[in-house]
C-alpha cells in the first residue's frame, strides 16, 4: 500500500498565449499509491480532464513532473509515449470507447497486442480476463450488442490486460444506471485492493466516494478542500456552494449543480421553500 505508483509535482498546464492564455491546471501535486483509489471531483471546466490527460501521458504539462515507475512523463520523447500508455496505464472512459469494428475478445486482445503480447497468449489472456468479468458468453459479440454495464466491464478488462500499475478512469459510471454504476465502483475498488494497482477516478458522481480512499476537489485547476463541498440532493453530484444555485429551506441552505435540479427540488417541496 505504501509503494507510490504515480506522482505529479507542481503540475501546470496553460493553453494558448498572452491575453487568450487559459491556465487549465495550476500547481497540482498528487501522489497515488498502489492499492489506493483516488477520486477527483470538481465542477465542469475545473481542469479534471486536462489533469487526467496529463497523468495518462496524452498531454504534456507546461511545467512540473509526472513520475511513473521512476520515469518523468513530462520529458519522455513522443516516440516512447505510445508504448508507455500501452504498458503503464489502463484507461476506462465515460463512453466506454470500445472499438466497434472488433469483437469483445478482440478489443482486449488488441490492447495486449499494443504491449507486444500476440497470438495465443493474447487470446488466452483476453478470454481469462473477460471470463473473470462474467463475459464468457459475450466474447465474439460486437460492442453494440452489449448493455452499458457489459461495455464498461469489457473496458475494465481491456484496462487491466497489460497489468498496468495505474488505472485512470474518466467518469466511469456516467452512462450507467444506478445499480450498474455501483457494480463498476465495486470493481474499481477491487482492482486497487485485490490487484494492488493505483486507481485514479475523475467523476461528478458522488456515489463513487464510497469506493475511494481519498476524494480530492479540483476547482479552477487547483485542488481545494472537499469538506467545503455540498451534494446536490437531486442528482448526487458534488458542488461548490460558492456561486452554485441554492435553496433556502427550513433545514438550511441546499446547493445544486444546476438550476434545473434546484427547480425540481423546489417543486417537490413546493410551498415550503424560497428560491434565492
Amino acid at each position, binding site marked *: 500500500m505504501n509503494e507510490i505508483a504515480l506522482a505529479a509535482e507542481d503540475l501546470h498546464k496553460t493553453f494558448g498565449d498572452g491575453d487568450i492564455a487559459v491556465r487549465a491546471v495550476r500547481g497540482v501535486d498528487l501522489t497515488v499509491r498502489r492499492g489506493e483509489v483516488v477520486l477527483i471531483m470538481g465542477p465542469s*471546466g475545473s481542469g479534471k*480532464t486536462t489533469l487526467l*490527460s496529463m497523468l495518462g501521458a496524452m498531454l504534456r504539462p507546461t511545467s512540473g513532473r509526472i513520475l511513473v515507475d521512476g520515469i518523468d512523463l513530462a520529458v519522455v520523447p513522443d516516440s516512447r509515449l505510445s508504448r508507455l500508455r*500501452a504498458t503503464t496505464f489502463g484507461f476506462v472512459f*465515460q463512453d466506454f*470507447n470500445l472499438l466497434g*469494428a472488433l469483437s469483445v475478445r*478482440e478489443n482486449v*486482445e488488441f490492447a495486449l497486442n*499494443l504491449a507486444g503480447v500476440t497470438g495465443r497468449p493474447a487470446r488466452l489472456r483476453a478470454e481469462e480476463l473477460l471470463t473473470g468479468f462474467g463475459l464468457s458468453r459475450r466474447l465474439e459479440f460486437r460492442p453494440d450488442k452489449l448493455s452499458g454495464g457489459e461495455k464498461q466491464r469489457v473496458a475494465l478488462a481491456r484496462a487491466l490486460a497489460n497489468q498496468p500499475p495505474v488505472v485512470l478512469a474518466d467518469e466511469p459510471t456516467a452512462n450507467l444506471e444506478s445499480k450498474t454504476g455501483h457494480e463498476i465502483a465495486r470493481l474499481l475498488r477491487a482492482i486497487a485492493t485485490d490487484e494492488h494497482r493505483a486507481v485514479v477516478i475523475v467523476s461528478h458522481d458522488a456515489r463513487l466516494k464510497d469506493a475511494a480512499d481519498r476524494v480530492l476537489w479540483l476547482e479552477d485547476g487547483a485542488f481545494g478542500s472537499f469538506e467545503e463541498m455540498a451534494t446536490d440532493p437531486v442528482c448526487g453530484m458534488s458542488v461548490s456552494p460558492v456561486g452554485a444555485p441554492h435553496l433556502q429551506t427550513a433545514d438550511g441552505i441546499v446547493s445544486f449543480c444546476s438550476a434545473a435540479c434546484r427547480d425540481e427540488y423546489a417543486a417537490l417541496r413546493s410551498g415550503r421553500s424560497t428560491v434565492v
Partner: protein
Amino acid sequence: MTMVPIARRMLLTDRRRALLGVAGVAVALVMVLALEGIAAGSTRQISRYIDTSPADVFVSQKGVRSIHMSISVLPADVVDQIAAIPGVAWSEPILLVSDSVRASRVRRPAYVIGYSPGEPGGPPVVVEGTEPGPGEIVIDDRAAAMLGVGIGDQVDVMGRSWSVSGVTTGMTSIVNTIVYVRYEDLGTVLGRPSSASYVLVGTDGGPAEVAADIERATGHTAQTRPSLSAEERSLVRQMSTDLMNVMAVASLVVGLAVIALVLSATVLSRLKDIGIMKALGLGRAGVTRLVLGQALATVAAAFVLAVGLTVGLGAGVARLTPDIDLVIESASLIRAAVGSLVVALAGAALPLLRVWRVDPATVFRSAS
C-alpha cells in the same frame, strides 16, 4: 506473431463501402489491363505472318525494316542472286500490298500477299478448301465470317473480283486481315510481274550470318525472322504508345481518386476509433500500418478482381469480336501491380496526414 487484424476489421465494418472501393479500383485496373491486353494482342497478331513463316531471313528494299506502313520493291533477279549466297537453302519472292477485301457492303483492310502455291510465303495452314488457283484467293476464317463469305464466293480486292478457294486462320487482327493470291496474279494487277516486295530465305547456317552476307552481296536489307518480328511489333507499339499511356494514366488516376475517397471516408468515419487506439498506445508507425493496410488490402483485392474480370472480358471479346485478341502479358501484370501499389500509397497519403494529427486525448470528454 498473430495480431488482431484491425485494418481488415475496420475496412470491413462498412462492407458496402469496402466493396465499392474494391470495385472502383478494379474497374480502373481493368481499363489498364484491357487496353494493354488489346495492344499486346494486336502486336502479336500484326506479326503473325512473320512469326508463322518458314523463312529464317526476310530481304527487303534497302532501308525498309518492317512490313507494316512500309513499301518495299525489289527487282526479280535478286532472288537468284540471293540463292547463290552460301548458307542460303532456298529463296522465294512474295508481293505484298495494302488494300481491302470487300464482299457486299462489308469492307475489311487487308494485306494482299502474292505467293507461289506450294512454296513458302503462303498461309501457314489452309483449314478449308485449297490454295489459290488463277483468279482465286484464300482468306482468313475471321474475315470470312465478318464478310459473310465462304468457299466459292466472290470478294473484291485491288479492283477486281476473286473467288474464295480456301480459308486459313489466325491472320486477322484488330488492324487488318491477310489475304493470299497467286504471285503472278498480283504481279499482273500491280503491273510489275517481275518484281518482289520481299524475298523469303531459308538458311542452312546461322540466320544472322546469312542475313549479313545477303546485305553485303545485294545491298538490300536482310533481317532474321525474330528481328523483323520485333521491328514490326515495336513499330505498332510506337504508334499506339502515347494513346495507351494517356489511357493508362487516366485509369490509374481514376483508381487513385477512388482509393483516396474510400480511405478518407473510412478514416474520417473512424477518427474516434483511431483516437482510442492512440490513447491505448498505438504509435505513429502503428497508425501508418493501419491506414496503409487498408489501402493495400483494397488494392490487392481490386487487383485480383481486375485480373479475373480482364480474363473474362478477353473471353467475351473473343466471342463477340473475333478480330480483337486480348492478351494479358506478365509485363502488363507487373506494370498494373506496380501502378496499384503506387495508387495505394498515394491514396493513403491524405488520410494518413489526417490520422497522424488525431489527438489521443480526444478520447476523454471535451477538455474541462
